[in-house]
């Protein structure tokens, strides 16, 4: 581009040709053309989805991941019985599964919401 004319010279142009275009570019176009703006949108979508995924992974690490250490460290936990069944058996044999499903359900809700928000941003509903 020759935006910067040499010193001492004055560029003579028709004002209409340099005037900024009034056509509004949609976010979809920005993404399709991989412009800086499009990239920012994409990165924010990916980051929010990755954050949701990492939240689930961290929760797993801090819950199921620490169970072996808890069982190892606290005898009172392993000795505790509910209806004659030792607590570790109840936790590992049954309670874990509904918890995993609940975690998955929360994640799907969050991920779908992020995608809906993104879609609304890119292609706003014509009102």
């Amino acid at each position, binding site marked *: 581009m020759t935006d910067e004319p040499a010193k001492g010279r004055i560029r003579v142009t028709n004002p209409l040709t340099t005037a900024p275009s009034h056509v509004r570019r949609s976010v979809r176009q920005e993404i399709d053309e991989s412009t800086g703006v499009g990239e920012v949108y994409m990165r924010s979508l990916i980051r929010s989805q990755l954050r949701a*995924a990492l939240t689930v992974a961290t929760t797993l690490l801090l819950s*199921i991941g620490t169970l*072996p250490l808890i069982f*190892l460290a606290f005898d009172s936990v392993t000795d505790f019985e509910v209806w004659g069944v030792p607590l570790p058996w109840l936790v590992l*044999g049954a309670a874990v599964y509904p918890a995993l499903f609940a975690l998955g359900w929360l994640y*799907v809700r969050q991920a779908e919401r992020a995608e809906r928000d993104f*879609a609304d941003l890119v292609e706003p509903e014509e009102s």
Partner: protein
Amino acid sequence: MNTTYGIIAVALVALATLGIGAFGLRLSRTTSDFYVASRSVSPVWNSSAIGGEYLSAASFLGVAGLVLASGADMLWYPIGWTTGYLMLLVFVAAPLRRSGAYTIPDFAQVRLQSVGVRRVASILVVGVGWLYLMPQFQGAGLTLRTVTGAPNWVGTAVVAVIVVINVVSGGMRSITFVQAFQYWLKLTALLIPVFFLLHAWTDDGRPSPVAPTAWFQPFGEATGPGLYLTYSVMVATFLGTMGLPHVVVRFYTNPDGHAARRTTLIVLALLGTFYLLPTIYGVLGRIYARDLLASGRTDTVVLELPSRMIGGSTGEVLAALLTAGAFAAFLSTSSGITMSIAGVVGQGLTRGMGASTRPAWARRISTITTLRLAAAGGVLVPLALALSAERIAVANSVTFAFALAASTFCPLLVLGIWWRGLTARGAIAGLIGGGLCAGIAPVMTIAWGPEGWLGVLMSQPAAWSVPVGFGLMIGGSLLTRGDVPANVSRTMVRLHTPERLDVDRQF
């Protein structure tokens, strides 16, 4: 145990499998049907099929056997196999579906624009598949021997033959029906006997299991190896599930990314329901079938309990039902893995032969023919291994397949989907390095069986081989930073934007 009921049960499952497969054959017309059921399977069907495919001999027989033998510590296996799906859901499900590829090698090529990565990934798919098929075939031999007294190789050969017929005739669409049917068969087969067994146990005055304290408590023998093994099993199963080729190929049959997520969520519910049951069998086995421990046949506890606790014709019918469920487990898992091996090998062969120069109809026929040949060929090696190798506990040997998948495909998928910086050379370094580490372990354990800490590290390699895989992949990519594919932004758009947006997804 009465052999007639058992043989009838096995025959019925085999016939039903082949029958449903034939029904699918009438619908299976094009290559796309053959590979991925034309991507039109609804979430409920698909998740039943995934459940049916995933619940293998290790889940149906192995978990109960391990619980009988080792108690509370073994509950980590089913937990890991379920949590693996949660990891798959959050890290790969929707983007993998949106990538639009058929298999992991396809994904690697689409994402990294490299035929080299494709080749390495194809070889690894075959490796993981064989490691997974071997215990299935062995379990089948063991089951048929328990039920009918036939030698081990009979059951192994029966399963291998049915699987090849099934895959060769109908491909993925028929497999979807077969798998979905088999999930519900497996759940029923395990659920109904539980009520009878628990009733018999109550009548018996609810005796407690007789076992050392170590059996009742996780880490009853608190040692370094014990803790290492538990965490290594966790790493392998949490991260390995997403890289199992027969699991991943199922995601391409979803209509879109949204459906892929819903499917995975339903799978979590289906698996969670199923895994409540094997523990009950294991504990009851500790009470009523402790002699199996001495004879080293703990994997058969599920099949033995009804005749021991109930007896009579009720016991025999229940045993037959369990046999049917076990056979469904072998057939469905083996079919799924064989299908994915055949898909990868078949694709590799057709492309290698320069198929693009031939007319469309010839290309299609030859693709399907290659797929069929690959299916038959892919079964032979694990069949030979199953017939020759010494038996190790089913659930243990399956973990080697998980560890290999976790050390190679997990880094490839996770980094490929979430990190723009992954390069082809970095990916190859990670696949080969992680693959070698996790691949040497089963060879060492089976062929040599080292003692002490080396033996412990080799028996469950995931805790060290997964970091190696990730490390090499990240390190290699950082060293070859200039190689990042030019179209990585477009690929990211394709992987992450919801389908309803009309954005440009072309490469």
